[in-house]
């Protein structure tokens, strides 16, 4: 029973991860709104601090067409994510994150890296390596370089279960 449940979950997981990786995830907004870029192409750098459970700043102003280097620091004591997407993308991603919690990949203030690397079949894993997102343990810092090619309803958000709903998100305001 347990084993078959796990396999079902694993399959569901790999399907959604595949979808995200392919960029065909939901309505393709991500592709329309922006894309990853190289640090050397960045017009400016914005430092984003992640606390338990909120961001500083909580609103970020961006211009259409600009490339921003986000330096994301986890200053909290829990695992947090910084993810650029539409509200609908975040909602979809939250289901995947829920699964990561259920499988013990995210445990309060720790990430289980072995579990993330584990082969779930068909070469899929619970690696969290999408270019629009970083998932950080307390004290960690990582960068995202993102080109905002088109205006859209974009938020930066933490999709660790419950965090978005508690208010850990902010608007990307296009000027």
């Amino acid at each position, binding site marked *: *029973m347990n084993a078959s449940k796990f396999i079902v979950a694993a399959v569901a997981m790999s399907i959604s991860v595949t979808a995200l990786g392919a960029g065909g995830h939901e309505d393709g907004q991500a592709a329309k709104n922006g894309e990853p870029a190289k640090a050397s192409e960045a017009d400016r750098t914005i430092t984003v601090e992640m*606390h*338990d*459970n*909120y961001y500083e700043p909580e609103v970020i102003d961006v211009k259409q067409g600009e490339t921003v280097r986000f330096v994301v620091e986890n200053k909290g*004591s*829990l695992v947090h994510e910084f993810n650029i997407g539409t509200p609908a993308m975040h909602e979809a991603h939250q289901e995947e994150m829920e699964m990561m919690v259920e499988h013990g990949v995210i445990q*309060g203030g720790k990430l289980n890296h072995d579990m993330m690397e584990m082969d779930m079949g068909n070469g899929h894993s619970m690696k969290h390596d999408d270019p629009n997102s970083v998932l950080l343990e307390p004290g960690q810092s990582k960068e995202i370089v993102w080109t905002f090619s088109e205006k859209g309803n974009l938020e930066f958000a933490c999709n660790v*279960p*419950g*965090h978005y*709903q*508690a*208010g*850990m998100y902010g608007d990307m305001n296009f000027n």
Partner: protein
Amino acid sequence: MKARLLAGALSMLLPVVGLAGEYDLTVDRIKIDTGDFVKEGIGYNGKSPGPELRFKEGEEVTINVTNNLDEMTSIHWHGLILPFEQDGVPGISFPGIQPGETFTYNFPVVQAGTYWFHSHSGFQEPDGAFGAIVIEPEGREPFRYDRDYVVQLTDKHPHAGDRIMRNLKTTPDYYNRQQQTVGEFFSEVSEQGFMNTVKDRLAWGDMRMMKADVEDVQGFTGMINGKGPKQNWTGVFKPGERIRLRFINSSAMTYFDVRIPGLDMTVVQADGNNVQPVNVDEFRIGVAETYDVIVRPQDAQAYTIFAESMGRSGFARATLAPEEGMQAPVPPMRDPARLTMADMAGMPGMDHGGMDHSTMSDMDHSSMAGMDSSSMPGMDHGDMMENEGEVSAPFYAKGSGIAPTAANGGKFLSYADLKAQKPLYEDREPTREIELRLTGNMERYTWSINGVKYEDADPIRLQYGERVRFKFVNETMMTHPMHLHGMWSILDVGAGEWNPIKHTVSVQPGTTLYMETEVDAPGQWAFHCHLSYHAAAGMFRKVIVEGGPETSQPSTDAATDLGGDA
């Protein structure tokens, strides 16, 4: 009197200057209108619930309580960490407040969150003597909201508390309206066979209780913020707003299952302490517990806050809506919960007449074999068996008849989901374990700890600086919300350093639950089941903390005979 009330109201409106606030409360006889009936009751500043006390963390509060009753009163600040003389339990913290007297409480507010206050004298609390406490934190909260509402639940009964206690003492099933009927007997016979049904009934009779003993005081009207279901308390919102709902269960006896059809809830706080946010569809709130949830209604429509009692004998209802007067459908109550043999597993003498648990499960399996499992959820005795495929709820007996499920099939909050947002204490090994068996005899309506009721019991002595692990073994068929005053209850949910801290922990029938307490508050404290009539019947202890920085130990135990008031 008018002037005093006005002064009280004004002082509540004034901003806190220099982080010292003065508050006035009068304890008054009042009329309570539930929409179903009007009764005499007790309130604060002329109403029940009393005024919402809004404090700020770090504030030094002065609260003048004037007793306008013709009997002694008291106020206990439920969940607040304070010097024991300020804790408001007659006979343990202080002598009580005599008729006509004004007693002044004074203590620093050292915490934040949602709490409540209530009388700790006689049955004044079930009679209406309670209110809400909201404490704003010094720093920012780990969540965001645009507005907040207290949602304070109670189970208002047409009878006064002392009358209920008398009736329970003489006829323990006086208020048990859901006893199984002859019709139910015959429908069970047709489903389970005559012998099995008779055996089951004999087993229950042998244990001096009934399957329907989920709630021993039925016949109440559920109320939210002083309004019955027909009076429909309404909280207004603008679509898109984030609303923090501060649920407080101020019931005498009733657990509620709470949901808001159409809205997801994110639990962010339990018993005043922040928890790592968890998204749920429904949660069960024990007597004296609090849960803070965040909801975000996007549409300009009304939503029903629906709180069914655990045994489904009554409900409370309120509304969230863009404007007053709008309402959403009120769902019907689900079928009454029935205790199963699993809920009785902790009872001594379970094997009387060969009706031990293993016999029961054999019987169930054979009698249920071949039944379509899809037809089972509606069958109360279907819960008697635990198939391999069934999910058992943590913190409930395996196969329990009262383990909750969400009405929409979604997520029901479990204690296992509660993780501290920021642990208050460093995790360490407990210095010792104290076993407390929760005991009772339903036939005589006696409730006790380790078989000894309060008036016959020695106090529990703790040493300042130790970390005690309490082992609760519930040998009764009722859920007991155990409340330790003055010190936090670190509930063992298996999360180690992330175990949540609470002031009230529910121990389900037939289960063992552990909590740990950092003994960091000198003095003497109450420790009891928060079901009003269980506490009064003796499921109550005095805890004495010996040692500590303040050498001023309580000078006398003389007032013990006044104690035991819930």
